[in-house]
């Protein structure tokens, strides 16, 4: 008779996590990054969204430690005179929101489709063919298509307002088949097990068996791909921004910051691109390393190559 918390404290999961230096370090870095991203309005020294506080005269100030740096701007400023550090924190927040949002949408669509096609034989063929078709379009094609329509419909100013949900929808729609396939494969394996037959003998309805009995048993692979998918979604958003289809410069994500700074890299203002770049790489790396740990933990039979 132990409480959930005690169970967790004694669990092998926590033990294995605390003994894995890489996982622990990554977790700490990720926690710090997440915290500073979401606490950006409080901890950031400037507000990059408030144009009245931005002075174009400060533009392209180098980091504070270089000889003509300004101590007010720790990591320098960008081409519009915004403080790099603050802009990056706000940008990281946008990137993370998009990454998590897109993955939630992907996971929702993918789990529903995967469950249905794994458990309802009649739907299987249709749903999996739709997934194949969806996978054969690349994310960028979907993005160019939808982005172009929305930009003409709302105009550039309106686009700024809907950009975040729009990109979430684009990346979510483009990559749900990953989830659908993973979930379907585990549903097919689970539905043969006797506990499902036992549930049917009790008389439970199909829907209830699907959601309450089969779904919880398919969640470990979903968890494994989710971490990697968050990283992928953040990368996709960065790539879309680089192509000019992502977040506008006025409300930048890490990706659009990199893009914006790219023009100035040859004029010597390397910091505008490099700092957001390092931050993006760090973020992706720690998420992926944590994802590896989750995968290894949930699937110990896997050979660690």
């Amino acid at each position, binding site marked *: *008779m*132990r409480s959930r918390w005690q169970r967790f404290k004694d669990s092998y999961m926590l033990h294995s996590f605390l003994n894995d230096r890489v996982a622990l370090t990554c977790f700490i870095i990720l926690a710090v990054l997440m915290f500073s991203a979401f606490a950006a309005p409080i901890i950031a020294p400037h507000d990059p969204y408030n144009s009245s506080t931005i002075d174009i005269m400060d533009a392209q100030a180098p980091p504070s430690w270089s000889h003509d740096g300004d101590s007010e701007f720790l990591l320098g400023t960008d081409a519009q005179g915004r403080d790099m550090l603050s802009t990056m924190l706000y940008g990281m927040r946008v990137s993370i929101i998009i990454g998590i949002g897109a993955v939630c949408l992907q996971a929702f669509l993918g789990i529903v489709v995967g469950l249905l096609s794994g458990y309802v034989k009649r739907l299987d063929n249709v749903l999996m063919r739709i997934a194949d078709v969806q996978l054969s379009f690349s994310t960028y094609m979907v993005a160019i298509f939808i982005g172009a329509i929305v930009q003409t419909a709302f105009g550039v100013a309106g686009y700024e307002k809907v950009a975040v949900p729009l990109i979430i929808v684009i990346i979510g729609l483009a990559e749900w088949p990953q989830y659908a396939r993973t979930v379907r494969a585990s549903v097919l394996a689970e539905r043969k097990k*006797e506990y499902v037959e*036992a549930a049917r*003998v*009790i*008389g439970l309805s199909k829907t209830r068996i699907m959601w309450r009995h089969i779904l919880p048993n398919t969640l470990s692979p979903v968890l494994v791909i989710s971490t990697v998918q968050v990283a992928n979604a953040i990368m996709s958003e960065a790539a879309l921004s680089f192509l000019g289809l992502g977040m506008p410069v006025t409300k930048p994500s890490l990706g659009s910051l990199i893009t914006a700074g790219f023009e100035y890299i040859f004029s010597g203002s390397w910091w505008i691109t490099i700092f957001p770049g390092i931050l993006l790489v760090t973020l992706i790396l720690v998420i992926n390393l944590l994802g590896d740990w989750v995968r290894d933990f949930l699937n110990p039979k896997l050979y660690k190559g």
Partner: protein
Amino acid sequence: MTAILEIRDVDKHFDISGSFIDQLRISHGKLNRKKTVVKAVNNITLDVQAGETLAVVGESGCGKSTLARTVMRLYRPNKGEILYKGERIDNLSSAKMRPYRTRMQMVFQDPYASLNPRMTVRQILEEPVRFHNPGLSRAEVHDKVAEVMTQVGVDPAWATNYPHEFSGGQRQRISIARALVVDPEFIAADEPIAALDVSIQAQILNLLMDAQEERGLTYLFISHDLSVVEHISNRVAVMYLGCVCELATAKELFSNPKHPYTQALLSAIPKLGGEAGNHIRLSGDVPTPINLPTGCVFHGRCPHADERCMREIPMQRTLDNGTIVACHGVEEGRI
């Protein structure tokens, strides 16, 4: 004695030919569509009497589990009728079937697969009670579960644990408890002790027999272990390739087997003090249920087979001692 369950001429065939494309075959220069069908259960007629234990024995793959699952309506029969206390249940919708779900329950073979690994024992046992008695209060459900757990010999204090924290024998007890919480009259037990250690098997068997005595249960007990069957059952049905070849009381069957297959099966049990060398050796392999032999399904391996056996399917006949046999040789008096 009245029949609690009647199985009438039931067939269960599985179509394993896959999608439409997979079914296409080219033969003799022509494209035609061919279905592959596993004939797991063929023309089975059986009655289970109230209060008895009817054992179903037979070698692996002869369709025992399929029969039990068809009775429990996990599969719909392709042909025939299944009656529970005189009411047809094989064609009911799932909603109409619901009242029968509390009267008929099933215990599965594999105690590791038959309990949902993501649910605690309490959740596993409370779910059927709540589902069938939505009016019960929390405390009543709790008491009901605790009572049944005590009956099967699992301490109710362990209810908050997950199945993986229990041993195989305890899991099978929990699995039996899940069947018992809805107070059934009839339980189909599909090899409930086959996956357990020999030392645990006797305990589980005793538990099943005690529960039968206390609750007046009827069992359809599936097994391939003849000594267990002799110990626990009142009557025994012997299956071969999806057909029932002999149905007799346990005493008659073990002392005086009629069907050539039963005789071969029983001669394989080592007996204390029995003379050596009377083991009936069967030649050949069990045919696949995909291409069933014509006539008697056993004719390829039967030492008494003749031309009629290859041609004509033997009908079930009741002998003077009450044994039911499907065999031309017995009918003609040559065995």
